[in-house]
């Protein structure tokens, strides 16, 4: 949906901008999502138990309870694909926030 995303898309942005990222914590992504909403309140970031279950299905990690460490290339590409599906306006905002957050 237009201007609507989940944590898996944010992860996709992180990996697109920094392919060698070794560890990502749930708290980091939560903070990034808060920053995204400060820039554009109309972006709906859906973070639920079910969306976490779908993410776990993709990458095999229960992200709400464990960090993502050294994700395989194949799984990174899946997340990047999720991110690329977003509309360009939303992607630009997410990329901007991710760059600022990690000082890229």
């Amino acid at each position, binding site marked *: *949906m*237009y*201007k609507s995303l989940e944590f898996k898309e944010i992860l996709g942005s992180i990996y697109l901008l920094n392919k060698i990222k070794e560890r990502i914590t749930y708290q980091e992504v*939560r903070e990034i999502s808060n920053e995204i*909403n400060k820039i554009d*309140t*109309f972006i*709906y*970031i859906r*973070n*639920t*138990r*079910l969306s*976490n*279950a*779908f993410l776990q*299905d*993709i990458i095999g990690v229960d992200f*709400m309870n464990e960090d993502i460490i050294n994700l395989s290339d194949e799984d990174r590409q*899946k997340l990047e*694909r999720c991110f*690329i*599906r*977003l*509309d*360009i306006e939303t992607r630009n905002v997410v990329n901007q926030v991710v760059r600022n957050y990690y000082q890229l």
Partner: protein
Amino acid sequence: MKEKKFLDTVHGYIYVPEQYCNKLIDTINFQRLRRIEQTSSRSLYPCARHDRFIHSIGTYHIGRKIINSIKNRINIENSIENSYLIACLLHDCGHSPFSHTFENLFGDITELFKIYKECIKSKGLDENIDIINIDIDKTDVKHHEIISAILCIAIYYENIIELGGNPALVARMIMGIGYDLADTKYTDVEQSLKNCFISLLHGDVIDADKIDYICRDKWASGYISLSVDVERLISSIILYKDKGTGLYNIGYEKSAVNEIKSLIESKNFQHNKIYKHHQVIYEQKLLKDSVKALTDKLAIAPNLIFNYKALLEPQRINNDNIIYMPTDDDIISLLKSNLHDNLSFQEWFSRSYNYVPLWKSISEMQSLLSIESDSLFTKLLKDGAYYDIICKKFFELANIKSFALDATPTNKKVFDNQVKIVFPSGKSIDFNKLYNYKNNSCDDITFKYIFIDKKFSQNKDKCIQIIVDVLNRKETNGQQS
């Protein structure tokens, strides 16, 4: 017990106790739902004018059938029964205007939940002590559900008690927050039974809410898809005690397997064919852009318009506007008064769209690209980055404005242990072992509609040629092929 009759075109006559009508339905918060559309697909299906009011009554009707079916096999405490029926009726009472489009504008979900916790504290509801410590971000609760729960405590508290319900349990059912069975303060068996009813309104795969809206949306819209034998599905619901733990679980008799499959596939159809239809997607964009332009013009934060407090008392938006019991009409009125010269709003209101899709389905995209080569279609699906390049090239090479919006099909996944089929012998099997809904065959593709400026809609051949050149990588350094 005196009852009132509602004639519903989906379920036939719906009987609601007169007391429920007096204390819940004939209230301003509930009647507000008459003016909130159920779906965002009205642009596609002009007859889909059904609202959250009749959906709530329909959900109550389904809930009542579920209770009657379960009571044939086990006894249910009156408090649980009444709470469940009340929750079915009130589950959408805090819903946002325009379906789910602007739900997030009500604010941070954690902050909303804090307000709910303050409400229950103010009523001295200490039985919900576990709720105080819940990380709401790790549940499936949506904004409108928390607001409905707030209304249950702030507005309907005394009424719910008079109707024999438990307001705290009603709120839990609406939000789908089960009791933590590991917490030894609770009697596990009793709480597991309550958890079953919580799941029968707010479930992952099957619940009263879904059963009603799938049937209702299909009827109102008029589209043809699989039908669900609701009576068969509901009559198959079993609450059984697990032999190991002694806790209640929900199961379904084997006779319902096809109906469960139909329900899942109907949901997939709705999701992929209706909500991902190019017209619905484009209209959602126009509406969101219009409301954003509205808040920019009024120089206010969106949550002054989408404000849960407006469901309790009038709230001032700015010097000229007050909002109270927000409905779709209120948002449209604000848009008309303030944005009559705004392009997005004009486009949305007039339905005279300035952009048209280059293709209207995956099949059409395939047929357009396959004229050149079969591999191009696959190439575009496999690498979503091409859509951006294509839009850029449209403008560089032909001055055609365009943008792409995602419509990748996604099928509902059913995870292990979400649905159990129970046999007369007492043995149970996971539904996934019978029908595998775990895999989404569209995970590795990206399908987007490319919307082009309507002025160039006669130049589709040129657009397709540009796409073919991009995919064939014939263009380099700005040279055209």
